[in-house]
């Protein structure tokens, strides 16, 4: 059953958190208006809807704001109750998926930090990230014991796929930018196959920013944090 009413999403094209919501709405086939925010010049509406953190994404449904990407994903799943279901129905499986989503949460800040580092500090940060990915590679075997599915009309990505995709869907671009290879198929066969499977999904392709645009943005951020490194 669909929910009638207006759906608006305040987002920013490079934000993985906003990308999650974009992806969820598209996977569920929900009509919505997307408002691109300039984070250096936030709209009145955004500040009014999210006065506490003033961040994107904010979903506004019938004039009511919902904030925090994972909270929004659950809201979407509970409001638009037709399939595809983002979260499993079984409480134990739900707990497992929520656990792994929480596990991936610190990764954005770890990645953002690498933009501000160089030399040995950067190497250390990359090592920390790799070790976290080792845990994920092992842990995902209990989510996908038979390997990652080929996503299709019948098997669409869900909550955890969306979270993972938002953080690692552009991994190849980020690695190209740094000139470092992190997510190798030898060390992370399951995670790499997961990214590859997700890249085939039309809705994922729709929300993934173009490579050149992302490279330009990473360059801009790096120059901001390390001006001598231009």
């Amino acid at each position, binding site marked *: 059953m669909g929910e009638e009413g207006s759906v608006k999403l305040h987002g920013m094209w490079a934000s993985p958190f906003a990308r999650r919501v974009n992806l969820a709405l598209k996977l569920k086939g929900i009509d919505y208006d997307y408002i691109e925010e300039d984070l250096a010049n936030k709209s009145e509406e955004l500040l009014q809807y999210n006065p506490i953190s003033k961040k994107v994404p904010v979903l506004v449904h019938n004039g009511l704001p*919902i904030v925090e990407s994972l909270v929004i994903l659950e809201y979407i799943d509970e409001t638009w109750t037709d399939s595809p279901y983002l979260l499993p129905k079984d409480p134990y499986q739900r707990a497992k998926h929520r*656990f792994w989503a929480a596990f991936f949460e610190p990764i954005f800040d770890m990645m953002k930090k690498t933009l501000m580092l160089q030399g040995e500090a950067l190497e250390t940060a990359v090592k920390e990230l790799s070790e976290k990915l080792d845990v994920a590679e092992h842990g995902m075997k209990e989510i996908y014991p038979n390997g990652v599915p080929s996503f299709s009309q019948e098997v669409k990505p869900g909550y955890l796929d969306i979270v993972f995709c938002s953080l690692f869907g552009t991994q190849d671009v980020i690695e190209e930018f740094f000139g470092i290879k992190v997510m190798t198929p030898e060390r992370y066969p399951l995670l790499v196959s997961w990214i590859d499977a997700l890249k085939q999904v039309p809705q994922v392709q729709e929300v993934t920013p173009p490579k050149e645009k992302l490279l330009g943005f990473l360059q801009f951020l790096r120059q901001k944090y390390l001006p001598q490194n231009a």
Partner: protein
Amino acid sequence: MTNDHQHFIPFPSKTETELRVIKMGEEVILLDFWSSPFGMRVRIALAEKGIDYEEREENLNNKSSLLLKMNPIHKQIPVLIHKGRPICESMIIVQYIDEVWQNKVSLMPSDPYDKAIARFWADYIDKKIYSIGKLVWVSEGEVQEAAKKELVECFKLLEKELGDKHFFGGQNLNIVDVALIPFYTWFYALETCGNFSIVEECPHLVGWAKRCMDKQTVSNSLPDQYKIYTHLLELRNQHLAHLKG
């Protein structure tokens, strides 16, 4: 067939097979530590639902092999073990409890929007109160002053959300109440270490906390504030001694 069923559930292990016998009546186990606010959340949720469970106190300096098997990734309490399977992370456990034992009092509103609001505030509490509160009782000088100021701001925001409701959940506790009330056990330590009065800064929040404590499900789940103060004071002294070298 006897009345007393026993389940023989081998826990998977890379090294040795550790076998445990779990009786049907004791199929809920909580791995816990007395002073953990996160453990307290789970105790309250279990009490609200009237669930029988076995509480196992962990020695955090010598963690049990069961804890290490059930939560290999974070190796932290609380861990709820239900029918031999682990659930980790306190708010994930609380939601699991609410979703499994549905015929009891509900810890979540039924409307999806109200659920989103509750989840938002539980997440806010998770992100802010532990880390900022800890800075108040563990540090001194400027760091402590800044943390105090921020903590009071957080409490005031929560007071605003509470409004004139009896609890965040209205007439009954919800996940926001459950997420926040364990930190009431820190109030004496916060006030003493930080030299300020929480009831003066946030009277409505203290009023709410006292209403929670009137409920046996809460008061039976929380240790005494003075005991917590002594414990936190010890951690503070260790931390400050370590800093001074």
